[in-house]
């Protein structure tokens, strides 16, 4: 026996597939260690003789490495490159070691070997199943001050990183004819068979190297070649094929409807200095015509007293560490099994020079050939026996063995104990796809039965243990999936038998109630906890699971579920199928939020929409507000101005001279066709037949229920063409609602809708000097009051480019909205600014726009209405065509509720103290001295300081508001009660004199 000095004392020269010439250095809890390239953290630790990997979640018990793959519930570590690139709870069995990696053990203080939290272990009799439910019942106040802070502090495993994740992530949608999940013997065989068809194939495997459990084999052959060589050749053959995509380090974690399978590819987590452009992970969303599941099987541990000491691990894992990584997991190894496959581990280890102390097989009569072989190799064998006790604090030191039918015990000194309770087929994805499982009584396992998706399960995930049969199954499934020609599967030899199993607890796991015989290592659940749950009335496995938390950790009970189920079934006195399995849910293994979010972070989190004039607003110091996805200029503060001052000035300038406003975000819909006017009559409450070409009208749109849905100005361009505007936020939903009526109710109407929101940049010029500013830039349109009155729309040119010029006003001033093709928006704006600035024009933002429209009592849908307000309630009942036979909402508006007295109606409010500005949303009452809870009459919808009027103004929805004009009402606030007087909604220029100039 010779040990390599470089990468760990337990490395066996000549064993394994890693190259001794390629080594990397990493740290474990600050201690520098060497590893070979291709090592997992677990194999590197084991090579260095380290089994102790952390402290357990609840009892802080020292824990080791249990497995060699994705199922690992125990060895969860904190892995980092730097402070920001740190991830807790990484499975050491999956994480590949890279140069410079920092690994830390978790869940201990002050150190791994001396941990004060381990006191929980001494108090473990108190931490029974349902402990939290029972203990923290009273007193009520203690929850807030004592229990919750305590539980929160103690909860969770590992520490989340505090810095933002600097990595980036990617997404890829892919389509293929065949997706194969799992690159073990069956998966590779299926890929090899199907690839010949030339069809598009994706093969994904969660490990760095394809091959699955074949990598753990030493003597086995496929087609006469050593299994490892067959893997290498097959992978090379597939990699060279155009139609095959090989995805190593890629976990299929979710199986969704219509063969949509989600995969997480780990792109850089194994690289020492990754290219910064490379994503850390890539999410694959694969739509596959057919899916072959070759997800293999996971070995189970055995449930017995103190079965969680570091050094106790799965027999299959030890074999993988030996034959793939060249690592001996111990020097005096015991085997405790109910399954044939663990014997192969014993033989391989003994052949590699490791002393196998004894093989303990629970079965009274295991395969005589195995027993004979062990005898020949000089390995002591105990059949019909169980391990009932183990000793060793930070690592197993000995095991106590008893014949099952006998209390006589003997003790073996060991430094490692390999266990096997048999194999659990990985039916997670099949089950996620809603496939039905059946219970295979003989082998104690659930296997796929009826599939729902177009998929096939092959190999050990299908309960097929024999390698020849598995490969034949792979060939058959692959041939069927691509409609290829049948070929013969190669013959195999030397594969270990997977016969024999135990689910549930072994001798030495109880039934007494203090033995710590672990089922679920990650959530620290013992056999006794499941029994207790049943005694306390949990009769459904779903309840047992939640009461004990077994199988609820991030490993989702890959090793523990069958044990928990069997123990519950035994305690309930029921058959296993009658108790049933809990449901498998995505993800199969934890997936980072980064992978799920992928490109949608930072600036790509959501679309940011900017108008063509955005850059001008930026250059002129605008403060922006978000309106839907739009950035809108909110106000334009000058030096020394706060928002209040800027808005007051913007309003004043607009009313005294002129203001320029970017209204490009308004929704615009072109309604075209011979039935256009008929359609407008349907969609809006207003009449449209008589609207003259070249004129505009303010339109209100209701839903069927009669409540206001949207509003906007509509211009008639020709008899059969309307230029419809909507609110900024309402644009998409208005178009959707229109299309909905058109496509589902009136498909025969000849009218078409086109969104033109972004075709037009819209420049509002408002104020007494508006005409003077705009006129010289315009060609072919007479802007005079006579030729172009309020609410006219004309087509012509401005600055030499086409325009739809509307004379409209949301401020109450003379005003124009200049629509120009969007790419000209900035240039036309610049020209107007050049002309208007010397005349005293200022830019104004959305806040000033809101103030000025409120001074005129114009509503904003969504602010002064909330989906329960009719046109009548909002004081715009005049916009409802009285003679119209039909429009959307006409019937809703006649409902008794909607015509009843006492509805909330939109009115104006003036505070008795003119300086006080009400809070929007504040409640309104008639009598502030009434007992609480007070009768609320309504609430404030809009409230501003009006610089023009010199007092505050507000709009409010108040019960029977129209009848309360002149009444005094009250707005109770936290520290004061504000008296207000109900008034008209129009605060400024009721007769519209400012408009008609």
């Amino acid at each position: 026996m010779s040990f390599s000095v470089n990468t760990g004392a337990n490395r066996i020269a000549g064993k394994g597939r890693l190259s001794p010439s390629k080594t990397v250095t990493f740290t474990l809890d600050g201690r520098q260690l060497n590893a070979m390239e291709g090592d997992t953290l677990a194999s590197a630790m084991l090579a260095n003789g380290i089994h102790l990997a952390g402290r357990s979640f609840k009892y802080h018990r020292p824990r080791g490495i249990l497995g060699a793959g994705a199922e690992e519930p125990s060895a969860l570590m904190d892995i980092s490159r730097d402070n920001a690139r740190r991830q807790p709870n990484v499975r050491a069995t999956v994480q590949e070691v890279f140069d410079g990696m920092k690994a830390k053990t978790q869940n201990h203080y002050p150190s791994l070997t001396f941990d004060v939290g381990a006191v929980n272990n001494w108090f473990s009799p108190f931490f029974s199943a349902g402990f939290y439910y029972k203990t923290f019942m009273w007193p009520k106040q203690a929850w807030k001050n004592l229990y919750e802070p305590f539980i929160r502090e103690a909860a969770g495993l590992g520490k989340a990183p505090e810095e933002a994740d600097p990595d980036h992530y990617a997404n890829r949608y892919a389509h293929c004819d065949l997706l194969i999940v799992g690159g073990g013997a069956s998966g590779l065989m299926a890929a090899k068979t199907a690839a010949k068809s030339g069809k598009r194939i994706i093969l994904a495997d969660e490990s760095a190297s394809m091959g699955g459990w074949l990598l753990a084999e030493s003597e086995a052959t496929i087609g006469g070649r050593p299994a490892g060589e067959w893997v290498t050749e097959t992978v090379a053959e597939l990699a060279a094929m155009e139609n095959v995509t090989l995805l190593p380090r890629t976990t299929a974690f979710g199986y969704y409807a219509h063969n949509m399978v989600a995969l997480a590819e780990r792109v850089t987590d194994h690289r020492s200095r990754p290219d910064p452009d490379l994503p850390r992970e890539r999410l694959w969303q694969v739509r596959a015509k057919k899916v072959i599941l070759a997800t293999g099987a996971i070995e189970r541990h055995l449930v017995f007293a103190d079965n969680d000491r570091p050094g106790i691990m799965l027999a299959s894992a030890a074999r993988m560490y030996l034959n793939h990584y060249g690592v001996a997991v111990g020097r005096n190894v015991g085997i405790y099994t109910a399954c044939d496959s663990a014997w192969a581990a014993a033989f391989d280890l003994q052949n590699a020079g490791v002393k196998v102390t004894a093989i303990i097989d629970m079965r009274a009569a295991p395969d005589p050939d195995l027993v004979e072989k062990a005898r020949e190799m000089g390995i002591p064998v105990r059949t019909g026996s169980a391990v009932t006790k183990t000793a060793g604090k930070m690592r197993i030191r000995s095991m106590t063995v008893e014949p099952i039918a006998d209390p006589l015990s003997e003790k073996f000194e060991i430094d490692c104990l390999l266990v096997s309770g048999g194999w659990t087929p990985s039916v997670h994805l099949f089950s996620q796809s809603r496939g039905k499982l059946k219970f295979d009584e003989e082998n104690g396992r659930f296997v796929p039965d009826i599939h729902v998706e177009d998929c096939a399960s092959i190999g050990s995930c299908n309960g097929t243990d024999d390698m020849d049969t598995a490969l034949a199954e792979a060939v058959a499934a692959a041939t069927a999936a691509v409609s290829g020609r049948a070929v013969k599967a190669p013959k195999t030899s030397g594969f270990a038998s997977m016969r024999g199993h135990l689910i549930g607890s072994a001798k030495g796991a109880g039934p007494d109630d203090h033995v710590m015989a672990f089922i679920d290592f990650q959530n620290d659940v013992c056999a006794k906890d499941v029994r207790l749950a049943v005694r306390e009335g949990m009769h459904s496995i779903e309840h047992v699971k939640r009461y004990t938390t077994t199988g609820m950790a991030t490993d989702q009970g890959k090793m523990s579920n069958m044990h928990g189920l069997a123990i519950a079934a035994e305690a309930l006195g029921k058959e296993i199928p009658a108790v049933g399995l809990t449901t498998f849910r995505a993800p199969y293994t934890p997936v980072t939020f980064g992978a799920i979010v992928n490109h949608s972070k930072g600036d790509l989190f959501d679309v940011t929409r900017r108008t063509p004039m955005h850059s001008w607003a930026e250059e002129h110091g605008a403060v922006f507000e978000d309106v839907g996805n739009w950035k809108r200029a909110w106000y334009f503060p000058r030096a020394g101005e706060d928002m209040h001052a800027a808005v007051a000035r913007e309003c004043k300038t607009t009313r005294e001279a002129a203001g320029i406003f970017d209204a490009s975000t308004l929704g615009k819909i072109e309604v075209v066709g011979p039935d256009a006017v008929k359609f407008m009559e349907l969609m809006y409450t207003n009449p449209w037949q008589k609207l003259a070409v070249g004129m505009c009208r303010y339109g209100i749109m209701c839903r069927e229920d009669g409540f206001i849905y949207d509003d906007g100005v509509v211009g008639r361009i020709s008899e059969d063409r309307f230029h419809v505007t909507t609110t900024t936020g309402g644009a998409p939903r208005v178009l959707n609602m229109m299309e909905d009526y058109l496509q589902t109710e009136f498909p025969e109407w000849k009218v078409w809708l086109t969104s033109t929101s972004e075709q037009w940049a819209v420049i509002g010029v408002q104020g007494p000097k508006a005409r003077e500013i705009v006129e010289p830039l315009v060609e072919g349109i007479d802007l005079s009051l006579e030729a172009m009155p309020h609410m006219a729309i004309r087509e012509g040119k401005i600055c030499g480019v086409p325009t739809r010029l509307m004379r409209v006003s949301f401020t109450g001033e003379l005003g124009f909205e200049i629509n120009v093709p969007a790419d000209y928006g900035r240039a036309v704006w610049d020209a107007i600014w050049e002309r208007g600035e010397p005349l005293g024009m200022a830019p104004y933002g959305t806040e000033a726009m809101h103030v000025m429209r409120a001074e005129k009592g114009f509503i904003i849908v969504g602010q002064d209405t909330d989906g329960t307000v009719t046109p009548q309630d909002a004081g715009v009942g005049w916009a409802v065509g009285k003679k119209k036979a039909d429009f959307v909402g006409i019937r809703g508006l006649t409902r008794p509720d909607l015509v009843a007295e006492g509805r909330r109606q939109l009115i104006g409010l003036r505070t008795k103290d003119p300086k006080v500005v009400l809070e929007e949303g504040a409640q309104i009452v008639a009598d502030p001295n009434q007992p609480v809870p007070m009768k609320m009459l309504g609430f404030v919808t809009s409230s501003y300081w009006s610089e023009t009027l010199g007092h505050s103004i507000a709009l409010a929805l108040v019960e029977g508001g129209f009848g309360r004009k002149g009444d005094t009402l009250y707005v109770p606030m936290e520290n004061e009660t504000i008296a207000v007087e109900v008034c008209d909604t129009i605060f400024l220029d009721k007769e519209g004199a400012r408009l008609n100039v």
Partner: protein
Amino acid sequence: MSKVAQRTGPLDGRNFGTTGVTLTPAAAATRISLRAREDGLATAKKILGFAPPGKPKSSATKGSINCLWIGPDEWLVIDADDSGLPAKFAKEGNTKLSAVEISHRNTAILLEGAKAVDVLNSGCPQDLSSASFPVGACSRTILGKSEIVLYRTGEHAFRVECWRSFSDYVWSFLMDAAKSA
């Protein structure tokens, strides 16, 4: 009269290239959203000089004019030259069809290179293999959180049409995807 206003495209001045893919803002073009039923197709054919394609995901081209099938009664007409399409449609009136000019509503990004499909598939769920989406194929689809019209102009060349204010997002998304493809 002051000077004639000049155009400013939303992606003016941008360009991006990395291994396997380049991004370029497309030149300004005339675009029409064409809506018509069976009885309007003859008129459309007269104006375009060819019949609008009738099959989903297909396009037709003559001279500078491309006509992309968008829906059963909807086409996106893109004219690289200004051959006066809006005026020609206006002359025909609105009785048989609807033609709305959207030259400025949309903008386009030209995506070229061996990795073009991978880049697009970072945000577009469609099957873009040559078999399913050959040269000339087009589709109104999504890229990440934006609606786009995707048009394959070559084995490794695509035109990505989107609304003006979405173009910054679409450009940035394609850039991010290109780096990590």
